[in-house]
């Protein structure tokens, strides 16, 4: 955190000054470790074993916050008798289909409800990364499942959890993670001791956690601990995702993602969502309780925002205009489709996949096989110059005179040359004022897309083709201003917020959205950002003039809540758990929830409120159902629906690992998304033969002084001077083992690539004892490429492409490799060199890495 989110880290230091203990778990000793009270080196890719160990410690010593757990989690809920655990099936859960490598999750459901919930097949869910929809709400489950409040029922979630993690002992943690058992026990004890009524512990992760083939389950494991210890929805607690880009949270909320529409509404799938009613019902689950019940209003208002007057109740608000998914259309599938010549044109908008995405060679070869490419950026980045300056030009795989791609480079406006909102890592929207006009031909994306749309509409005007109707009917009349006819960002923000069609007056909460076409709402979770016609994201009352939650600074979704599920900061009766941790509570005199934040609960619903059984919608939420966006009102220790790879996090090895999974014969995530192609070779992984050709584990991450693919940092003098060269960090022991010298050259090899770097020999990397033998990890920054003031080989070239099945994010935080002294070969010799490794590792065009490695299931 001190490295990649330095200014955010001041609050950790502030907490430390007030007595908090800071524990840092990381494969590499960083600036965070330097000021932490405890630093724990860990093997990259083993986090679930570590976190599972903590869960086991809590449960086997009865250290959970029992009152919280009983009231606010699904610990007492009874699960189907058909459920079988990975502990029974050697690494698989019940319902596994070895053919499709997906689960039929009906046996994970709550008891007696096996046939309910999402009926769509999980293969389709994996292809469309449908779990992403749950960023704002849980999937459909029955609202009143059977419970055993004594937690003794053998099939209640609590007991299932206890059995599942029983083997995750300190000894097993030591064996898998390389963390000495005493050190592990110290961390587990500290975490539990610092949680409860009087104290809370915060879990902070950076989104490197998502870049694993089990990324979603990493985060689930952290969430289980926080729920067991009562650290969710309370001040000083939570699971804090440190996102890495200015508005990456915003890019998910108002997604430019293939499978989502704004506010986590699903892009329609051709089978599942053939009609408008199918689409709405698949979101709202008519029988379900909670706010999600009103999905019809969110859907209709979005379509009204898109197609304006043309969208009417009679034509299902132009639902028929929406394009349909048929499967995986994600960025990695696209890259392979480019290589196969299926894609004609590609827009890159402030993004540099030639350096920033996994498997750089595939990225660049894909771009070299397009009809046209539009790059919009501040600087000349590698993704714009791949045809003249790239590793493939060096090896002859791309020959400029033979490369057909037509490239348009359009300069972009910088963040100070346009106005608009960024959503930072805590869901807070902040408006940026424009300081000046962009130089020369530089323009904002708002300008580019508004005018591109305008020109296309002009060119298609008069077309009678059915396929052109959605473009011609589009509500696209944004006012413009200034010399360049810049569209008004504030008008767009008002559309995102939503307004009444008749009066044009902006809405204040998403509760005001209607399903009859009388409201427009471009992104329901952002409704309120323009409440009262005021740009709430532009509020900037000085911090000294505000209380702790700083509500007069920016605006957080939903409804300006700064801590989600803050109803849980009070006990079931609505009283603060303790004076120290008081945040939101029930005030019986005024008959409403009050406190330091906007209550994440209906303001006047008393804690004692109990609905009639089976009541759907908001009325179905009881006065102590703190997790209001979940179908059963509970925080989920066990996930009965909505995940592809299992209801509980389980330790699987990374896809490429030198370690045989000590827990199960199932080596790695059996449901992971794979692309089995000769141009995507994978290193053999233990226990397969030849795994030893790539004996080391490597991890990549960021430097303080650079930013992601380097387009905004390797181009700047100060930053390029502060970190002037690509390097690889190794321990003194590994340096001795491989003959590497400090500041000398080395090269790192995988089945995809060999890249070179300067060697940094430091004891910031600790050799670990894993399963009785020493394992070395090496570390690389991933910022470098062939353009800019400082150039170097790209670490992401080392990775192949394998994805987490829930969200289709690639495993690019851990892999296996070899490292050798000296520079890598160049030109054709480089290709032969990497081919030599593939040969020795037994990698052929026909080879398929084994995926299901157990006979159970």
């Amino acid at each position, binding site marked *: 955190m001190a490295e990649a989110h330095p*200014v955010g880290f001041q609050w950790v230091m502030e907490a430390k000054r007030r007595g908090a203990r800071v524990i840092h778990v990381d494969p590499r000793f960083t600036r965070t470790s330097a000021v932490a009270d405890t630093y724990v080196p860990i093997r990259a890719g083993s986090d679930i074993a570590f976190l599972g160990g903590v869960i086991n410690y809590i449960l086997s010593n009865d250290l959970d916050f029992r009152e919280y757990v009983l009231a606010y989690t699904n610990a007492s809920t009874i699960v189907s008798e058909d459920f079988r655990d990975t502990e029974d099936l050697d690494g698989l859960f019940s319902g596994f289909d070895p053919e499709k490598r997906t689960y039929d999750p009906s046996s994970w459901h709550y008891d007696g409800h096996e046939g309910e919930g999402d009926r769509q097949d999980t293969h389709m869910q994996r292809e469309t990364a449908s779990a992403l929809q749950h960023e704002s709400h849980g999937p459909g489950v029955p609202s009143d499942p059977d419970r055993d409040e004594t937690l003794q029922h053998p099939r209640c979630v609590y007991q299932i959890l206890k059995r599942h993690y029983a083997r995750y002992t300190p000894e097993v943690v030591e064996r898998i993670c390389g963390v000495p058992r005493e050190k592990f026990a110290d961390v587990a004890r500290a975490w539990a001791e610092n949680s409860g009524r009087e104290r809370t512990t915060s879990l902070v992760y950076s989104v490197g956690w998502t870049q694993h083939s089990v990324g979603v389950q990493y985060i689930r494991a952290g969430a289980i601990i926080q729920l067991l210890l009562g650290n969710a929805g309370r001040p000083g607690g939570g699971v804090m995702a440190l996102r*890495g*880009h*200015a508005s990456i949270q915003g*890019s998910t909320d*108002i997604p*430019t993602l*293939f499978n989502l*529409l704004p506010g986590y509404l699903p892009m329609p799938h051709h*089978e599942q969502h053939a009609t408008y009613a199918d689409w709405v019902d698949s979101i709202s689950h008519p029988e379900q309780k909670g706010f999600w019940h009103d999905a019809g209003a969110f859907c209709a208002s979005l379509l009204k925002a*898109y197609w304006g007057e043309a969208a009417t109740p009679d034509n299902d608000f132009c639902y028929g205009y929406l*394009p*349909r998914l048929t499967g995986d*259309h994600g960025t990695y599938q*696209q890259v392979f*489709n480019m290589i196969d010549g299926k*894609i*004609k044109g*590609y*827009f*890159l*908008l*402030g*993004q540099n996949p030639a350096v*920033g995405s996994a498997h750089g060679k595939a990225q660049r070869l894909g771009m070299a096989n397009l009809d*046209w490419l*539009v790059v919009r*950026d*501040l*600087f000349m980045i590698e993704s714009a110059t791949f045809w003249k300056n790239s590793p493939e030009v060096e090896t002859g795989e791309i020959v*400029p005179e033979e490369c057909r791609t037509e490239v*348009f*480079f*359009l*300069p972009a406006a*910088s*963040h100070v040359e346009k106005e*608009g909102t*960024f959503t*930072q*890592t805590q869901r807070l929207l902040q408006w940026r004022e424009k*300081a000046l006009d962009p130089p020369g031909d530089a323009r904002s*994306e708002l300008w580019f897309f508004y005018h*591109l749309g305008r*020109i296309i509409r002009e060119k298609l005007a008069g077309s009678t083709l059915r*396929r052109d109707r*959605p473009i011609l009917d*589009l509500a696209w009349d944004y006012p413009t201003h200034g010399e360049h006819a810049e569209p008004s*960002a504030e008008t*767009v*923000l008002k559309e*995102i917020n939503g307004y009444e069609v008749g009066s044009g007056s902006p809405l204040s909460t998403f509760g005001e959205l209607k399903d009859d076409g009388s409201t427009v709402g471009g992104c329901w979770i952002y409704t309120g950002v323009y409440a009262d016609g005021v740009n709430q994201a532009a509020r900037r009352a000085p911090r000294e003039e505000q209380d702790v939650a700083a509500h007069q600074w920016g605006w957080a979704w939903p409804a300006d809540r700064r801590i989600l599920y803050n109803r849980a900061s009070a006990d079931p009766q609505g009283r603060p758990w303790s004076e120290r941790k008081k945040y939101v509570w029930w005030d019986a005199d005024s008959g409403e929830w009050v406190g330091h934040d906007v209550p994440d609960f209906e303001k006047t619903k008393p804690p004692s409120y109990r609905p009639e059984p089976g009541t759907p919608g908001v009325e179905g939420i009881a006065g102590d159902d703190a997790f209001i966006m979940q179908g059963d009102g509970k925080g989920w220790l066990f996930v009965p629906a909505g995940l592809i790879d299992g209801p509980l996090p389980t330790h699987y090895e990374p896809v490429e690992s030198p370690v045989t999974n000590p827990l199960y014969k199932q080596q790695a995530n059996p449901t992971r998304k794979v692309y089995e192609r000769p141009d995507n070779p994978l290193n053999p992984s233990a226990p397969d033969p030849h795994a030893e050709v790539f004996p080391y584990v490597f991890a990549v991450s960021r430097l*303080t002084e650079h*930013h992601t693919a380097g387009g*905004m940092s390797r*181009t*700047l003098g*100060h*930053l390029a001077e502060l970190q002037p060269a690509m390097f690889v960090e190794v321990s003194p022991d590994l340096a001795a083992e491989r003959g590497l010298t400090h500041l000398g050259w080395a090269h790192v090899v995988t089945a995809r690539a060999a890249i070179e770097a300067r060697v940094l020999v430091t004891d910031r990397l600790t050799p670990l004892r894993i399963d009785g033998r020493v394992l070395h990890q090496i570390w690389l920054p991933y910022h470098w490429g062939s353009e*800019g003031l400082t150039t170097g080989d790209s670490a992401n070239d080392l990775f192949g492409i394998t994805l987490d099945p829930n969200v289709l994010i690639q495993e690019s935080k851990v892999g296996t490799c070899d490292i050798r002294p000296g520079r890598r070969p160049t030109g054709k010799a480089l290709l032969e060199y990497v081919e030599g490794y593939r040969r020795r590792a037994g990698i052929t065009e026909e080879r398929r890495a084994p995926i299901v490695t157990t006979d159970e299931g």
Partner: protein
Amino acid sequence: MGVRTWIEGWPVYRQLTGTDPLGRGAAAQSPRSKGLTARTETADSMARSVCPYCAVGCGQRVYVSDGQVTQIEGDPDSPISRGRLCPKGSASKSLVTSPLRQTKVRYRRPYSTEWEDLDLDTAMDMIADRVIAARAASWEDADDEGRPLNRTLGISSLGGATLDNEENYLIKKLFTAMGAIQIENQARI
């Protein structure tokens, strides 16, 4: 210059008699630095902005004089950052004023070895033509069973996460209306 002014001009005199006994501030100040004013004080305008790098969202104050950004400082009012910026945030003035920044449209013809210049309006027109053509050539009306598809798989897009919400909103809206579904973002990566 009178004798008094002359003596007061000695740093050591100021150090012994003034408020700066350690001689690190006012006492050691030269007439030149005394005559200086901060760029931030004389700026024509100041815009309140947000750092474009990581997601902490530190507040920035952007100072402009004569149509140029002259300084970017941390915003002391921000409850998130309290006026601080890290090395990247502090370098953001160079980001926006860098001589390496591209300000002209560049065009590379198929099979060419060099960039050429291109007028922005012409570029926009050419891109619009290409989008329309790619869409027409790869349009899919319906699946095998006649269920609607309404889409093209001929167009892709990948955006960075320094795009504004408003920009992402228009990007998704336009592409969706065009039937282009392969729209992705750093958020997937």
